[in-house]
């Protein structure tokens, strides 16, 4: 990755550039730019990793509380205020549990499976932008990298399903692979329509194309069908409840997770929740204007008589950007959780019918219409 990461050349008037400030500050201490860049590299990665894990903790708490509310219970109450420490307790419990490998299982593949599920999900955070320069790396292939990485996951699921030496696990793994393959295609087609409109695969460019007139310029108004397709497919890729057939507990015990315990189970758990937050973040990047505020920040700054380039304004815009990204993402996570606790599960034939016979043609038609509109109205649909 080293050779082809691009140093973000943000427009000078657009937000903070922490990296160049950091390199300049270290240059003041007598370090060369190469060395300073090397010291800088792990910092955003660590920050994103920590925020992903914290995001999972928040997610688990939300899931417990919202499910309780949907079922008219109270939910976790005693661990910390409002049960805020409950996810920590869950995590610690999993950490201290015995790590069991079944006697007739294939221990190597059994161990490697959960790792292969988690690593691509965490790698995909590479392209999630929280601001103009607030992302790990503005790689040119951006959103395509996420699609490619998320296609590795089924191999991990198949691996753990096979290695468990258990019929339920194998069935769960096969279902997971079938589901993931069939929903990847409409997902990619929905993304392709967005890419066509913004003329770039980079997530930063996709968000920049949605700025200008605040909430009105968000892609959701131009791609309502694409938004619905993407959201359904993202839920299916995350194996959230209307589509959680791979681990359907009434039919398959827990699918590919059946034989797992302790930290290896926790890896699956982490992976699925990180994936949910990641999908929500990408929906907000692709369709809801990413870090954009519903009212254009430039207009607000002009109203207050401030220049957009002033350091304080830049700081506030950056902070607003991060808050907006997270707010939008968690709004979508809230919807996902609400869906999980109110909607019944689909059958496997319904799932495949929906993917292949409904979403795929609709996504193709959506792509064609987007192309036609782009040719007809280049000003509104990206020239």
């Amino acid at each position, binding site marked *: 990755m080293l*050779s082809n990461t691009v140093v973000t050349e943000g427009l000078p008037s657009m937000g903070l550039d922490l990296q160049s400030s950091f390199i300049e500050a270290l240059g003041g201490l007598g370090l060369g730019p*190469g060395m300073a860049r090397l010291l800088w590299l792990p910092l955003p990665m660590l920050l994103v990793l920590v925020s992903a894990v914290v995001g999972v903790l928040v997610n688990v708490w939300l899931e417990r509380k919202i499910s309780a509310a949907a079922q008219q219970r109270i939910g976790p109450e005693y661990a910390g205020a409002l049960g805020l420490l409950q996810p920590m307790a869950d995590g610690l419990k999993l950490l201290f549990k015995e790590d069991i490998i079944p006697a007739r299982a294939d221990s190597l593949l059994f161990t490697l499976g959960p790792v292969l599920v988690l690593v691509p999900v965490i790698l995909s955070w590479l392209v999630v932008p929280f601001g103009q320069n607030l992302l790990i790396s503005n790689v040119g292939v951006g959103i*395509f*990298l996420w*699609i490619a990485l998320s*296609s590795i996951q089924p191999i991990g699921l198949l691996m753990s399903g096979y290695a468990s030496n258990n019929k339920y696990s194998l069935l769960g793994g096969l279902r997971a692979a079938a589901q993931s393959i069939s929903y990847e295609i409409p997902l990619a087609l929905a993304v392709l329509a967005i890419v066509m409109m913004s003329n770039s*695969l980079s997530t930063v460019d996709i968000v920049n194309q949605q700025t200008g007139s605040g909430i009105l310029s968000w892609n959701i108004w131009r791609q309502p069908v694409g938004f619905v397709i993407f959201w359904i497919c993202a839920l299916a890729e995350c194996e959230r409840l209307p589509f959680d057939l791979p681990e359907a507990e009434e039919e398959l015990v827990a699918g590919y997770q059946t034989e797992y315990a302790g930290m290896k189970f926790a890896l699956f758990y982490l992976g699925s929740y990180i994936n949910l937050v990641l999908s929500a973040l990408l929906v907000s990047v692709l369709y809801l204007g990413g870090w954009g505020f519903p009212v254009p920040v430039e207009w607000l700054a002009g109203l207050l008589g401030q220049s957009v380039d002033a350091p304080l304004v830049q700081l506030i815009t950056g902070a607003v950007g991060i808050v907006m990204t997270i707010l939008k993402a968690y709004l979508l996570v809230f919807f996902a959780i609400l869906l999980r606790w109110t909607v019944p599960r689909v059958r496997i034939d319904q799932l495949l019918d929906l993917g292949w016979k409904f979403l795929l043609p609709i996504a193709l038609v959506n792509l064609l219409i987007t192309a036609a509109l782009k040719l007809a109205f280049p000003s509104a649909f990206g020239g």
Partner: protein
Amino acid sequence: MTVASTTQLVCFVILSSTLVLGSLAVVLLPNIVYSAFLLAGVFLSVAGLYLLLNASFVAAAQVLVYVGAVNVLILFAIMLVNKKENLDPIPGMAVRRLLSAAVCAGLLVLLIRVAITTPWALPGPIPVGEDATIRIGEHLFSDYLLPFELASVLLLMSMIGAIVLARRDVFSSDIITGEPADQILIEKERSPMLLEPNDPAPLRSSP
């Protein structure tokens, strides 16, 4: 040497050794499931080599197509039909293995000779970097249009072939032999099976 070039060298050594060892293991391992998983590793390290060559789009496409689609389908097929059965020993196995090893070794020697004797233009052209996606698109729709379309026709043909093979029940006679097809469409009835009222419910009858 700078930090960047050292990292590049280390990455190259790791990637190429996993590539070579992994592909040897794919061919030589007796367990087909291990071979299939290792094939995914081989494809991933090829993608890593593309990344080192500054071709990030090709690398991502490699992961998406080969790891995400081809390899998953191979695994899927293996796991759906993974029966433990003892195949009959093939006569003259040692001779067959020796012959195929000799052919492979000859091919390797030939390729190495080509690699050594070809006057490679060094250093190669400057990497296009992030514009590569646009350049690939331009080439696909101008001078490489015919191969591109031919590839899609090929895919269409294989798709139709697969459908024909899978749905032989819809034809009254076999396509290849012309004999009447004896396969019938196996599909469960949509309505649930009802037990006859005077039937003594064999499932529930217990002493």
